[in-house]
């Protein structure tokens, strides 16, 4: 990273840390949402951007993670930090199962994407029938209070949630930066670029693809736990929805798949513009459902057609930030 980039990064970090002090609750909630999508986008990026495996069913891990933690809290009063472990274990196993089935049977590309969609949809309908977790009517967890800080139960003011999400997003960024420069990063990229050539160089592609999907699913499950305690209500139709999976990938695709800053930039651009549009329309008295998503679709279309590598690579070049990646 060159000096200019480092300086900008420091500036960004400072701004992010200071935000709750200057921003109102609305801006804070938008910022929290951006960080949420930056985080899930980063997690998805590990599988797609690094290892080249297209997953369109990532809502599965958000949902399972959320329900795991929420279920434990709702029925046994077990706090989110313990519920987190169940979420992690379940999602790693799920990811491993899907990965094992797909990679052992040589499923890749479009077929793999369809497989991930099928698993997410199957789970969505399945959870509609699990009454112990609320069924289609939803699972609601109690919000004890929103004033003072109770980190153990993830209860507190909006600023708390903001900082938790900021910590998660920052850790994800650091983890991915580290992974990218490690053996894993090199091997994943080799697999992404040309799997048979990678094998000829001694890479056990099955093992490394499994690692990618397991890391990705584990990371995403944490987002699910956060989701449960932030929104406090879960519906299978919403959380496992394929629209959720698409939302997760919008950030990285628009920002730049396979890059470190792509998911963050994409999440920021998308959320802020979407919010801007909704606000503008509301000011004009137009409150039509679906406008935001049409906008998402148009932006996605534009980026896919004209900026196939996402916004970040071009932006970084223009600003003189990137030396390599």
């Amino acid at each position, binding site marked *: 990273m060159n000096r200019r980039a480092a300086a900008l990064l420091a500036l960004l970090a400072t701004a992010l840390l200071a935000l709750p002090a200057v921003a109102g609750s609305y801006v804070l909630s938008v910022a929290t949402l951006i960080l949420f999508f930056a985080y899930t986008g980063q997690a998805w990026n590990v599988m797609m951007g690094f290892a080249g495996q297209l997953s369109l069913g990532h809502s599965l891990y958000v949902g399972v993670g959320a329900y795991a933690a929420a279920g434990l809290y709702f029925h046994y009063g077990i706090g989110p930090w313990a519920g987190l472990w169940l979420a992690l274990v379940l999602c790693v196993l799920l990811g491993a199962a899907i990965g094992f089935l797909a990679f052992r049977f040589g499923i890749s590309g479009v077929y793999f994407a369809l497989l991930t969609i099928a698993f997410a949809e199957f789970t969505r309908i399945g959870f509609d029938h699990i009454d112990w977790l609320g069924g289609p009517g939803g699972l609601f967890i109690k919000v004890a209070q929103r004033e003072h800080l109770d980190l153990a139960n993830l209860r507190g003011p909006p600023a708390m949630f903001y900082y938790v999400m900021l910590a998660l997003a920052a850790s994800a960024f650091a983890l991915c930066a580290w992974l990218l420069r490690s*053996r894993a990063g090199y091997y994943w*990229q080799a697999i992404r670029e*040309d799997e048979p*050539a990678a*094998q*000829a*160089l001694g890479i056990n592609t099955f093992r490394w693809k499994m690692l990618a999907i397991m890391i990705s699913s584990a990371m995403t499950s944490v987002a699910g736990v956060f989701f449960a305690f932030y929104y406090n209500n879960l519906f299978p139709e919403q959380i496992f929805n394929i629209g959720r999976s698409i939302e997760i990938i919008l950030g990285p695709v628009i920002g730049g798949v396979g890059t470190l800053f792509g998911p963050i930039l994409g999440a920021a651009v998308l959320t802020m513009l979407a919010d801007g549009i909704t606000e503008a329309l509301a000011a004009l008295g137009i409150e039509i459902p679906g406008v935001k998503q049409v906008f998402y679709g148009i932006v996605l279309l534009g980026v896919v057609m004209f900026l196939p590598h996402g916004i970040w690579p071009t932006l970084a070049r223009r600003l003189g930030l990137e030396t390599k990646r």
Partner: protein
Amino acid sequence: MGRLEVQNVSKSFRGLRAVAGATFEVDEGAIVGLIGPNGAGKTTIFNMVAGVYAPDEGEIRFGGGRIDGLRPDRVCAAGIGRTFQIVRPFPGLSVLDNVTIGALARSTGVAEARRYAGEILERLGLGAKRDVPGSALTLPDRKRLEVARALATRPRLLLLDEVMAGLRPTECDQLVATFDELNRREGLTILLIEHVMRAVMALAHDIVVLHHGEIIARGAPEQVVRDEAVLECYLGEETDI
């Protein structure tokens, strides 16, 4: 030690026999050329040695142990590196990254792998292009990158698949000199498929000739190029008019 033994190996694809009962050895430290007309089965033999497919019959041994049926990455771990007939650089990665990936096969860490990769690049004359993305290289450079990447895995046996195709005579000579040096100085065993006779004659100690999946001749270069069966398969039978 690093001796390759191909014993009575056969392979068919949906009824079409690509290789039939091929038997030959490559002694450690030798350079053997595998030649024959197009479609003779040369790359199929390579692919069987490299683990891309398993032979229908026969055995392949390297360094005494059986390698037929092993996955390609296990074959690489056993000490065999290969290049592809149609070169496959990692297009989105830099030249240095390409070779580093190869070097990671036997390096303890990324830093060491990068350092070793840099050395190999210098050796093959690609040092100046280390940051160029794979997709931006010219064909001769891609060939050299392919070789560098395979060499980075520190193989005892290197399989070269038509590496000279498309190179100008001077470029060809440069590569030949590099291989010759690697062979003499480090004892690298080489099995090469080649159509460019200039390279074969300059490098090979021994030549194996393949035709319609069968070995029809074996011996020193000067002998083989005069062998009647070989001439026939390349030029056709003599007809009395």
